[in-house]
């Protein structure tokens, strides 16, 4: 864990903002609208409205969890600034570096807009390609925040546990493979 101290005297760091409506959102909206139109067409308005009502109820049930998860993802970067995490991981090497990077990837909450710049910054502070790959792969496969908020909400518990267990070794294996394949050239 990097130090969480020495923050009282300083102002909180600025966080980047991003547009609310981007291409990704429009793709999602058009897909949802098309699926909704097809349900209306094949099953009628009543069925479509019933589904919409159920989904909104489900969202209300999830809301406290989503709110807590978002607060964590929004606050942690303030307490654990990006440059500190990067230096912390860049300092390590060998198997320890891979394990640390994999742990950080799973534990640090945040979407792609936060994770990829963080991973890219590892290279600038001395982390090798193995650590960068282990971090990104671990975030993609094992992100704790995502599993707690979304995966356990939709999928059966045993299935989630099996998936996590099966995926557990891969961030390290990918990190080792990255060192073996690309490590000699420019890492």
């Amino acid at each position: 864990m990097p130090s969480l101290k020495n923050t009282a005297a300083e102002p909180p760091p600025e966080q980047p903002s991003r547009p609310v409506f981007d291409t990704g959102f429009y793709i999602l909206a058009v897909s949802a609208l098309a699926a909704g139109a097809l349900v209306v067409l094949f099953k009628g308005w009543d069925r479509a409205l019933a589904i919409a009502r159920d989904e909104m109820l489900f969202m209300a049930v999830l809301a406290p969890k989503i709110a807590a998860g978002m607060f964590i993802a929004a606050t942690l970067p303030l307490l654990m600034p990006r440059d500190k995490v990067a230096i912390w991981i860049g300092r390590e090497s060998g198997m320890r570096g891979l394990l640390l990077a994999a742990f950080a990837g799973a534990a640090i909450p945040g979407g792609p807009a936060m994770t990829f710049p963080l991973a890219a910054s590892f290279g600038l502070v001395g982390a090798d390609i193995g650590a960068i790959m282990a971090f990104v792969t671990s975030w993609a496969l094992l992100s704790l925040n995502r599993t707690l908020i979304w995966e356990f909400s939709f999928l059966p518990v045993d299935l989630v546990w099996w998936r996590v267990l099966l995926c557990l070794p891969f961030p390290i294996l990918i990190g080792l493979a990255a060192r073996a394949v690309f490590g000699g050239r420019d890492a």
Partner: protein
Amino acid sequence: MNILIGTVLLGAVALWLYARLPNAEWRAAGMANAWRMAQFTAPRIVVALLGAGFFAELLPPEQVRALFGEGAGLSGVLLAIALGPITPGGAFVAFAVGAAALKAGATSSLVVTYVTAWSLFSASRFLAYELPLMGRQLALRRLLLCLPVPFLIAGAAHVV
């Protein structure tokens, strides 16, 4: 029950973090950040949950069972891996699609394979974030290295 456990866990961590913020200025910044994130995420969640609900309704159970049920074989694995990257939207879409397929008769191992393929190769995430933020070389290298993973997961999931 799952939802309750997750809510309690995340709620406790959120409260702990709130207590760690050093003063009122930091707490205000934390809340402002969370609010900005909510504005970004809320419309996506609403649209995605609606879309996932409609999509699940449209899934024909007979076809799902034929393509992804017991005895689907290698073609089921390949199709599950191919569908992962082209799933639009965030985590909730992929998990909702997986849950709908499971209800319609897909096997657990193929749903695990699909979720793995999505989490490693989501095309919208790759194009919108990974490629521009990580640079072409690192992004493509990761893609290449991770390529075997869904196949290995499918094999392992099939065995267990």
